[in-house]
């Protein structure tokens, strides 16, 4: 039975983090040298945490499955990073960033965490500048900002379209320094496959060396997971092909509560899948909706080319349904509208998965050069992928799973329900509630890694200073055996010759249909019935060539799919139990007559934290969300 104690310090909102930093115990420098910390993952959160912990004097052992710590999927973030610097003097403040984030998350996040995030946001920019991140500058040499994601202030810092990559290279360079100093031992091409828990504390991990296939146990005083999100559970997503849930899911099975697993963000403007071969979805900037108009033919049977369809036979469905905001409604609203149109059979393009995003009006009014200047690179990317010239025929877009707000439950100190197991970045559930604002994921990853975890982990280490267990401790051996057994099962399962990818695709379809942008009880119950069947087929029929004792990409992948097949059920349980619509979670039963989501603060103003129970359905624990400083309001865009 787990207890959810959020550990939020008392006192006024703006004093909480200061108080925690003051009340936290410190580890003496001499002791730090003797303390070993494991960090798994080298994205923004992992790299910034590992480098800062190394700089503080801890011995850090850092793991990533890529060939280099610089390749984590944080690099793909394009838009920017928010910070309440108010350099534009346009009315921004820590309080406003806090409020926007809480509201954007549809009042399903913890006030104290979000406020701290807003407070720290300003330090992140300074730290990144010091590390040499080449942020965009004004002619006078000051940092440039843009407005992003529909907020009313310009608080987003950016490096062309490469903000994520540049921030990660900054953290990676700091990590390189600590590796050079001998403070961090970097182990690329290793995958964490289990957590070692002894005496109720996380004491290490089991990893597989992806080159040799060798399994080994690594023990330490504490373990930090920075292993990212799980959008790939949908098979097609904007995530990198390697992104997976394995680390957090295995930690869940060892006792860490998983919070709000069904809170997944679907981005409206991705390039639609072209066929069954499609391996990933490529995101197009949301800014396209500033000038493009979304439409589909009025008649589902209309097979004419888009330019031949007269305006009277076009349905500009966002403008029709949301006359006030039109094509600029928020991500979740736009995504749902597109999906419902396609579900009616009115979608365009291969498989009817897509709607037109048409620029012909703006080209006619403002000229092709204006459009080219604004979106030239995006049109080019679109043409490269689809082979179509969007200056002449309308683009086609379709929503894509993008970011997961859910993650392992953590308290204010970023510690999970397993003492000594810390979770940072997208891997935890903390700060975005039911929906994340644009340019906030980079902020959260770096806040956790550079500024929060290094403080809070010190307190834990000062309080619980036990030497690491031996690598052949019974708990370590048990974990190794669990991993070995599972791998053996995968390599031996050679039934009806189906590939892991085919199961993954089937699972993705189930989730997309029933636990995607809109969910209903019947659909979720149905999913909960078919997922175990699919899982059974997987273990019976999957074929994994080669052996476990070598470089074997298919074995890595099959293991991740196996975890997705279990984790998907947890998502559906969470989505089914939450009988309200909030943020990215839309339950068809809970909407107004106009189709607007209905949040239920009476019954569901809590974090749903799920506990693993062997052979049973997961157990629900609730962390109530008390809004002391802001009043929940209703989002409306009609």
């Amino acid at each position, binding site marked *: 039975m787990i207890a959810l104690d959020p550990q939020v310090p008392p006192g006024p909102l703006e004093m909480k983090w200061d108080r925690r930093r003051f009340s936290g115990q410190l580890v003496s420098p*001499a002791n730090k040298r003797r303390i070993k910390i494991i960090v798994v993952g080298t994205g923004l959160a992992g790299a*910034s945490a590992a*480098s800062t912990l190394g*700089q503080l*004097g801890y011995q850090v052992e850092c793991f990533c499955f*890529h*060939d*280099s*710590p*610089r*390749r984590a*999927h944080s*690099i*793909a973030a394009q838009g920017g990073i928010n910070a309440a*610097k108010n*350099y534009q003097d346009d009315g921004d403040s820590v309080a406003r960033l806090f409020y926007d984030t809480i509201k954007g998350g549809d009042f399903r996040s913890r006030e104290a965490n979000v406020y701290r995030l807003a407070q720290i946001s300003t330090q992140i920019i*300074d730290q*990144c*500048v*010091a*590390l*040499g991140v*080449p*942020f965009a*500058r004004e*002619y006078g*040499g*000051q*940092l440039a900002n843009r407005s992003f994601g529909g907020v009313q202030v310009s608080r987003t810092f950016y490096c*062309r379209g*490469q903000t994520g*990559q*540049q921030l990660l290279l900054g953290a990676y360079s700091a990590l*390189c320094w600590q*590796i*050079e*100093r001998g403070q961090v031992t*970097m182990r690329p091409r290793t995958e964490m496959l289990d957590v070692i828990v002894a005496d109720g504390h996380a004491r290490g991990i089991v990893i597989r060396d992806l080159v040799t296939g060798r399994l080994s146990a690594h023990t330490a005083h504490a373990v930090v997971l920075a292993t990212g999100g799980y959008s790939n559970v949908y098979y097609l997503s904007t995530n*990198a*092909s*390697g992104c997976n849930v394995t680390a957090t899911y295995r930690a869940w099975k060892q006792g860490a509560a998983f919070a709000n697993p069904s809170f997944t963000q679907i981005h409206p403007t991705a390039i639609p899948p072209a*066929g069954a*071969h499609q*391996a*990933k979805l*490529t995101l197009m900037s949301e800014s396209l909706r500033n000038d493009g108009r979304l439409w589909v033919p009025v008649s589902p049977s209309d097979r004419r080319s888009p330019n031949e369809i007269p305006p009277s036979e076009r349905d500009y469905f966002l403008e029709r349904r949301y006359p006030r905001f039109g094509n600029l409604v928020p991500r979740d609203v736009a995504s749902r509208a597109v999906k419902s149109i396609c579900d009616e059979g009115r979608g365009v393009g291969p498989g009817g998965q897509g709607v037109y995003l048409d620029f012909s009006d703006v080209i006619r009014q403002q000229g092709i050069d204006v459009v080219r200047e604004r979106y030239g690179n995006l049109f080019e990317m679109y043409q*490269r*992928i*689809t*082979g179509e010239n969007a200056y002449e025929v309308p683009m086609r877009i379709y929503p894509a799973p993008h970011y997961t707000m859910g993650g392992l439950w953590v308290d204010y100190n970023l510690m999970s329900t397993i003492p000594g197991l810390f979770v940072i970045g997208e891997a935890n559930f903390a700060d975005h509630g039911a929906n994340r604002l644009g340019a906030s994921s980079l902020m959260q990853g770096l806040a956790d890694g550079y*500024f929060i975890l*290094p403080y809070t982990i010190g307190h834990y280490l000062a309080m619980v200073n036990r030497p690491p267990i031996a690598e052949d401790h019974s708990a370590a051996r048990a974990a190794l055996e669990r991993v070995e057994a599972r791998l053996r099962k995968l390599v031996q399962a050679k039934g009806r010759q*189906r*590939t892991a*990818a*085919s199961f993954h695709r089937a699972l993705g379809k189930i989730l997309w249909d029933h636990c995607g942008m809109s969910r209903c009880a019947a659909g979720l119950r149905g999913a909960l019935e078919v997922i175990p069947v699919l899982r059974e087929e997987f273990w019976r029929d999957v*074929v994994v*060539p080669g052996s476990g004792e*070598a470089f074997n*990409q298919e074995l890595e992948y099959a293991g991740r799919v196996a975890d997705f097949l279990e984790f998907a059920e947890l998502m559906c349980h969470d989505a089914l139990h939450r009988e309200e619509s909030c943020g990215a979670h839309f339950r068809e039963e809970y909407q107004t007559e106009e189709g607007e989501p209905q949040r239920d603060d009476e019954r569901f103003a809590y974090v749903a934290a799920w506990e693993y129970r062997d052979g049973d359905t997961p157990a629900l624990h609730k962390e109530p969300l008390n809004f002391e400083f802001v009043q929940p309001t209703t989002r409306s865009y009609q």
Partner: protein
Amino acid sequence: MKFTLRIWRQRGPNERGGFVTYPVDDVSPDMSFLEMLDGLNQRLIVAGEEPVAFEHDCREGICGSCSLVIDGVPHGPERGVTTCQLYMRRFANGATITIEPWRAKAFPIIRDLVVDRRALDRIMQAGGYISVNTGGAVDGNTLLIGKEEAETAMDAASCIGCGACVAACKNASAMLFVAAKVSHLAMLPQGKPERTRRVMAMVRAMEREGFGSCGNQYECEAVCPKHVSVRFIAMLNREYLRASIMGTRIPARSDAPHGESY
């Protein structure tokens, strides 16, 4: 569309490799090159054969994982893209396509088309950073950086570390990579205090890894998916010359600001 693929297969670093020919049909022109290989691998797995190992991750041209030499050119026939951004409509139906790994002494083959690029990380560890502690950074606007300098630094920083420059170079030189990293930091005021030590340390690290030297042929620039300019190599040479004149010899590794205090 139909193609004949000649793919380099090699089971391990010390095993003999060779080309194996695979016919593929049923290829859609809308497939990416990697999706075409995915399709081949699915077929091989079902047939009980081992799939072709190749590196990939983000599949949107930014992580730098993918690394195929296609018909004699790193990242293939299209300019300014990574392998994952290459689409099959770029190829003539019926063509024979030769696929090889990055080839360099410093990039040993792990399996098939996957190579070990840790040499690039080790160059970075030698000096590709600014030694500042977390916390205590001054306000970002305290350092004024002109727009043009910031943009040029960004041009250099846009390197994704894929190693195509090494793969394309006749001498397997890593000069464009090192130049991009050195130039990015040398352009910015934050990077200036350590510039002398940095360039020397990184050049020496590059030497230790067994990369060749620059022949000023500019094949690297021509295959770089991010169009990193060879002008940064000139800048690296300048930095090197400057550092030589400034008289630093091998960097003292004991100059880390920590450590002695306790």
